């Protein structure tokens, strides 16, 4: 998926595909260390449940990062993300098994702007639940 997206080839409503990404307990431990966010609800099941969560949940930013990965893979190396925003509508629950959770991201072109920029509307789901809403990225294409 490299550099094959042309601004002129895209229309409002164009689908830009779908991809699925795993989220395991190991992913979250690594993300704690890489991001510096060590909130216990991302690694301690006992405390997560004691504060009313169903289980350990993924960092919202881990989920957003998967949506970002989807966008940068689609856009290719000559593109640039100029704006990226999401609302975290539901947590990604990550069970303590060998599979973990799956985050599935898809998107479409919502608007074409000047300067070779497009607004992408993104959807992210885990276990059939929408985990991101109002997810938008503005990408400047080469």
């Amino acid at each position, binding site marked *: 998926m490299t550099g094959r997206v042309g601004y002129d080839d895209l229309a409002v409503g164009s689908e830009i595909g779908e991809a699925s*990404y*795993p989220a395991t307990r190991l*992913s979250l431990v*690594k*993300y704690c*260390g*890489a*991001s*510096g*966010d060590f*909130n*216990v*609800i991302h690694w301690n099941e006992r*405390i997560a449940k004691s*504060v*009313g969560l169903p289980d350990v*949940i993924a*960092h*919202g*930013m*881990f989920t*957003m*990062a*998967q949506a*970002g*990965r989807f*966008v*940068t*893979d689609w856009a290719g*190396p*000559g593109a*640039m*993300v*100029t*704006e*990226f*925003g*999401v*609302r*975290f509508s539901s*947590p990604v629950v990550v069970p303590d098994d060998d599979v973990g959770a799956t985050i599935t991201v898809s998107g479409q072109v919502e608007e074409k702007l000047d300067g070779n920029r497009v607004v992408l509307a993104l959807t992210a789901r885990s276990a059939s639940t929408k985990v991101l809403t*109002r997810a938008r*990225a503005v990408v400047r294409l080469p």
Partner: protein
Amino acid sequence: MALNRDYLGKAFPPGDPYEVSRVKIAEFADAIGDGNPLFRDRDAAREAGFPDVIAPPTFAIVITIASSSRAVADPGLNLNYAMVVHGEQRFEYSRPLAAGDVVTAQVTIDDIRDAGRNAMMTTRTEIRTAGGELVCTAYSTLVERGGAA
């Protein structure tokens, strides 16, 4: 146990400069499972027109967390972090962060409000180079479950 409204509008002075490194970018990319060569291979990044490896679009959260942790952990704010979940996040970029950038982050508490039983706080973090170039503005909304006044 409510959030301290006196912190509304409070700006926290920028901390020590943060140096964006190739190693940290690679660690972050690995943690999110992203094998994109732009985040690991300097030659690939240069071929795409960047001075060095660039950071994934959500990498700025690393710098944001390092700065906003001083606000979040300020006992005077009275935020119960175990009850906190992330509500919203938005980034605006003038360019991607790249290895070699030395930046500072200024955090301002833009909003504190209740939403039903929860309290919500929005911070704005401006990430600038030593030369004053605004590279990224990050808006973060944290939700303190059950934290309404």
